[in-house]
């Protein structure tokens, strides 16, 4: 019988060298950068076209999101159905997503089908017609989706906390009301499309196993498009946080749970404390073994889960604690969150706990670099945030070498209850 009481010897994950495979960078004739990572075992590819076309650039709420959604719903020669049927026939996925600074069109397909699909992608960038009827359907469906979401305490809390942190008018804090959808007009979408897609600023990220004529295909389809020519005027949007810090909202009198958000503003990735606070955040509430989870779920059973995280914005973000807890234990949950902050400010982090967090972070990072899509996602994140490999390497070093007293110092700097907004939505 083996000795089951003692753990087998391990190699500390912090002993691993972590390397992020570099992408090949290729510039198309029109100066559009194409980053590509060739890796993987399956004959598949993913290509992302990232446009500077997020809600940062819109003059009216939802123009960016609506334009992004409708971009594949018809060109001068193809209906929305024709486009969808074509994409589906080749077993592909053509998705689009709109963020704050960027809006993205993503193609996933089998390598052997790529050649059939790229001309269609080019067509939607140059010749989308944004049909009036499609806007009508979008408006109607989004309004109903919103009505359903507004019944959910977590949805209401999620948008409210952003508005408290950044201001209701700021692109990071703005949210949609029914009236915003009613106010959408096709002319404004078409203008946005012309300015931010047809003649917009684009960067391309590709990963997977490429066909041998990949460079030629990309050049043929995208190398002569009028991207990156106009000077992009970068609007300035100052943060206007709410003056009131404490909020209780009763959204559903019958609700049996409350959505709790406790959050403060936090600088972006360029701030020297950012990588260090990522370690502190992990210990605090960033993974299943965190202090918040151990106390509030595993010891007290107040919630199915509680997490903290650093919000992912380019200009500056927030540090957020988020959970749904039983209605009658919401107050107790909030109290425990502050208790855990205080423990980090005043208490000790023993060597064992810190090593666990470091090993966990490095171990998951090792696992997370598995496969081409994960690798390109890291690069995309670096590049869109104006960072390079040094940031990645520095973050890895920080995880490996940070001391407990540095973490305590950071806790004293950033985990001060007075700096936090506190919101409970039942």
């Amino acid at each position, binding site marked *: *019988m*083996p000795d*089951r*009481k003692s*753990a*087998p*010897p*391990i*190699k*500390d*994950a912090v002993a*691993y060298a972590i390397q992020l495979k570099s992408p090949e960078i290729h510039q198309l004739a029109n100066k559009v950068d194409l980053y590509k990572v060739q890796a*993987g*075992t399956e004959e*598949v590819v993913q290509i992302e076209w990232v446009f500077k076309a997020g809600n940062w650039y819109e003059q009216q709420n939802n123009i960016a999101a609506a334009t992004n959604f409708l971009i594949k719903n018809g060109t001068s020669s193809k209906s*929305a*159905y024709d486009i*969808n*049927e074509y994409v*589906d*026939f080749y*077993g*592909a996925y053509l998705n689009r997503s709109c963020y704050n600074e960027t809006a993205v069109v993503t193609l996933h397909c*089998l390598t052997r089908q790529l050649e059939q699909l790229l001309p269609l992608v080019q067509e939607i960038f140059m010749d989308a017609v944004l049909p009036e009827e499609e806007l009508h*359907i979008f408006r*109607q*469906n989004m309004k*109903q989706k919103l*009505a*359903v979401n507004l*019944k*959910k305490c977590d949805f209401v809390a999620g948008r409210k906390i952003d508005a408290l942190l950044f201001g209701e008018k700021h692109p990071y804090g703005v949210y949609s009301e029914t009236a915003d959808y009613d106010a959408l007009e096709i002319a404004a979408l078409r203008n946005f499309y012309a300015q931010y897609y047809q003649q917009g600023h684009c960067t391309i990220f590709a990963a997977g196993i490429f066909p041998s004529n990949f460079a030629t295909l990309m050049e043929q389809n995208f190398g002569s498009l009028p991207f990156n020519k106009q000077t992009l005027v970068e609007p300035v949007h100052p943060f206007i946080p709410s003056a009131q810090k404490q909020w209780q909202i009763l959204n559903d009198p*019958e*609700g*049996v*749970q409350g959505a709790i958000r406790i959050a403060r503003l936090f600088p972006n990735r360029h701030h020297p404390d950012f990588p260090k606070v990522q370690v502190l955040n992990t210990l605090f509430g960033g*993974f*299943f*073994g965190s202090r918040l989870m151990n106390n509030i779920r*595993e010891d*007290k*059973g*107040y*919630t*199915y889960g509680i997490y903290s995280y650093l919000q992912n914005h380019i200009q500056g973000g927030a540090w957020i604690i988020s959970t*749904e807890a*039983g209605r009658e234990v919401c107050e107790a949950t909030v109290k425990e969150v502050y208790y855990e902050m205080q423990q980090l400010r005043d208490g000790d982090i023993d060597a064992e706990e810190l*090593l*666990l*967090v470091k*090993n*966990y972070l*490095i*171990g*998951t990072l*090792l*696992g997370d670099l*598995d*496969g081409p*899509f994960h690798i390109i996602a890291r690069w995309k994140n670096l590049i869109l945030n104006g960072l390079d490999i040094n940031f990645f390497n520095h973050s890895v070093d920080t995880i490996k070498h940070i001391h407990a007293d540095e973490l305590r110092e950071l806790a004293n700097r950033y985990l001060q209850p007075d700096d936090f907004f506190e919101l409970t939505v039942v």
Partner: protein
Amino acid sequence: MVRFERFQLANGLKVLVHPDTSTPMAVVNVLYDVGARDEDPGQTGFAHLFEHLMFGGSVNIPDYDEPLQVAGGENNAYTTNDLTNYYCQLPADNLETAMWLESDRMLSLAFSKKSLDVQRKVVCEEFREHYINKPYGDVWHIMRELAYTTHPYRWMTIGQELAHIEDAQLDDVKRFFFKHYTPSNAILVVAGNVTTEQVRLLAEKWFGDIPAGERYQRNLPQEPVQTEARRRTVHRNVPMDAIYKTWHMCSRMDDRYYAADLLSDILGGGASSRLYQSLVKEQQLFTSINCYHFGSLDAGLFTIEGQLVKGVDIQKAEDAIEAELDKVRNQPIAERELQKVQNKTESVMAFEDMSVMNRAGSLAFYELLGDGELMNTEFDKYRAVTAGQVHQLAQELLKPTNSNTLWYLSSTDATQP
């Protein structure tokens, strides 16, 4: 093509090894052949509650998560109506840590009172979060009870009611463990940067001396053939009316499964599917509509669900669905349309197989179906399906007498019928 080797320990544990040297990681996946269908009707939700307890310490190791995290690993688990699956990933050098942890909790849990007390609460919060405090959260609770009279698919994995979870006792936990969590009811898959020899040694060392236990003999009451359409209407505090229709379909191992899966894609798989194009885009009766099934191991449910545009009469909306069903029953399916959903299936499978964790999970699942090798022949079965077969299946499956219809209506006063 996923290559693997297989061996079995004397106590009945099946072990599959899938080496992949392109990753520095190892994945350990343990599937137990027990799900919500194996529960006592008076103690539903137990298989899932039990999954939570599997993290509450085992006989020799007080905590599962901590040593795994120290070794750079992370893990999770899920329970379905059919099975319970545990998986973890860690640097391959530390594979033995995972084998030590998984084997000890297969040997015996600690059966801690505290863990049971806390996890009962946690699962009740999970129940509230997903099924009570969410609009439309109780749909499957209602639909399962409508569609099944006999088979234990009648209840959801989370359980029929909160009380079943609140009342769970430590003795029930012990009985459940020794009945289902035995080596002969489990499949172990080790994948990633490992060799078969290394896994064989570690499996013998850590799992070899676990008593075989009794092989659980599943003998579930089977659902009688439904001969009459069933309907139910409920009123709830939701903003929009919705409609849910289900039909009893074949089991996962039935030859007709592949045609049924392709039929669900033809009807409701994505933006070029028939229901979406006709009902959301052309007629604008629904804001969303989907067609899917659960791939259940026993005979399951083929489902259409849609949310109505505000103001549309629900009878009119249902008639429009029926008109599409008439088309698929009465008119042949075009070759191009079949080819489209086959192509889509091929690419879904290729994308799923990208991560070593998914490949390990799939191998365990196919081994449960009878042979891990099925993973490599699965797509051929989809490719072999003919348009005629899908058409014939649509006629059998979508018979009105085989249908269950739920009208989920919006009411401002939330009358509970």
